[in-house]
């Protein structure tokens, strides 16, 4: 069977110790049996490793930060599209999803397809909205509230018992054991990711995760549960293993069938000692460990691109349990000329 030629633009090329999902998504796409993918990387920083990984990324363009607004982003995409004829755009950062979702209609008119959650789906699963989300969909979630200052926290601190989890709107989470630590982490996260800050009840247990893809009609196209077996000091999985857990699959099914989630998703869950599952976060995209799902038999990046192209995709029927990943670091040698080219011209 002849493969479908497709040009996919995607971000998340920061394959560092706290990696973006770009490179794992690309690995899935490059291994596709039905797609012949030309990969156009979108990078924010000159030192994102993916820019220089030419066996995976065919061409990379520098793009403006989402915080610069929709128009600068669209202007850049228009230029890249003129050169590359992008057919599918896969944003891999939480922080850029809003910009891309807002631009979905314009992108579609340009001929660029996406497969993203709706704005409502995106907004209601925010960390700050998790208690309402849990109530609405009948999912156990830890108690949480948002604060814009330490003064705000002092007003609500009686509702929490220490330790608490201090979380940024998009990224970062720290466990704080007293008010002083809450204050330290509040300022640390606020300085990096802005306000508000989410204060969440700490649920004791084992963190488990599910990567899943929804077709937007209430069906789960694929889902693979995993437990991190090695966690870095930044809380990132450096190793993981696929699990056989019907409760996790049922919970995923329940969320997708009720929300009609469209696109990739990572569910972050805590399994308590009494085997209860608490949902602590929903990430609205494929996670950096998605290649484990590919290796376990579910090429979710491929399925996502096919859905974006409007193709029918049959749900995956299973996956290999006990499949492991172990991340490693590698010193890639790069040419100064390439770095110069990307730094000065914004493409390489």
């Amino acid at each position, binding site marked *: 069977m002849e493969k479908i030629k497709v040009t996919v633009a995607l971000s998340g090329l920061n394959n560092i110790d706290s990696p973006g999902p770009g490179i794992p998504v690309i690995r899935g796409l490059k291994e596709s049996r039905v797609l012949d993918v030309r990969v156009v990387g979108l990078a924010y920083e000159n030192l994102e490793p993916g820019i220089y990984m030419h066996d995976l990324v065919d061409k990379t363009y520098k793009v403006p930060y989402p915080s610069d607004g929709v128009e600068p982003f669209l202007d850049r995409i228009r230029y890249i599209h003129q050169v590359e004829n992008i057919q599918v755009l896969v944003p891999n950062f939480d922080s850029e999803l809003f910009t891309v979702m807002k631009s979905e209609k314009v992108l579609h008119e340009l001929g660029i397809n996406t497969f993203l959650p709706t704005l409502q789906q995106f907004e209601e699963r925010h960390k700050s909205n998790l208690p309402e989300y849990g109530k609405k969909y009948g999912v156990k979630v830890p108690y949480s509230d948002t604060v814009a200052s330490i003064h705000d926290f002092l007003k609500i601190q009686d509702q929490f018992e220490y330790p608490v989890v201090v979380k940024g709107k998009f990224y970062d989470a720290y466990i704080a054991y007293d008010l002083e630590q809450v204050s330290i982490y509040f300022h640390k996260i606020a300085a990096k990711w802005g306000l508000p800050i989410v204060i969440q009840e700490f649920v004791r247990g*084992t963190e488990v995760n599910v990567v899943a893809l929804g077709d937007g009609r209430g069906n789960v196209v694929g889902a693979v549960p*995993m*437990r991190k*077996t090695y966690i870095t000091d930044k809380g990132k999985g450096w190793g*993981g*293993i*696929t*699990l*056989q*857990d019907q409760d996790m699959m049922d919970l995923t099914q329940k969320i997708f069938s009720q929300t009609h989630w469209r696109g990739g998703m990572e569910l972050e869950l805590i399994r308590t000692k009494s085997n209860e599952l608490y949902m602590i976060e929903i990430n609205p995209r494929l996670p950096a460990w998605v290649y484990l799902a590919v290796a376990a038999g579910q090429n979710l990046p491929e399925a996502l691109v096919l859905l974006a192209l409007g193709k029918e995709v049959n749900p995956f029927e299973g996956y290999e*349990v*006990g499949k492991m990943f172990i991340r490693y670091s590698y010193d890639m040698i790069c040419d100064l000329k390439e770095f110069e080219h990307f730094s000065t011209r914004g493409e390489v």
Partner: protein
Amino acid sequence: MLKIKNNIAISDSGFVFDARTGDSFTLNTTGLEIVQLIKEGKDYQGVLQVFLDKYEVDPESFERYYLDFVATLKHMNLIEGNGED
């Protein structure tokens, strides 16, 4: 009777994998033999008899080691229910 949970995979090398939690353990040859006998459906008396026939061990010592080992299996969540033998 003790029953090993059905999501537990045990290889001939003594490697134990809990597919629900992702935990893995290693059994020595004696532990592996006991677990295999439990999996075959043998109760304590059945396991004891096999060991008395095969090895130079007195029933009192074996019982002590056996109970200790089974307590570890329970602690590791490898045994179904309350795991009464």
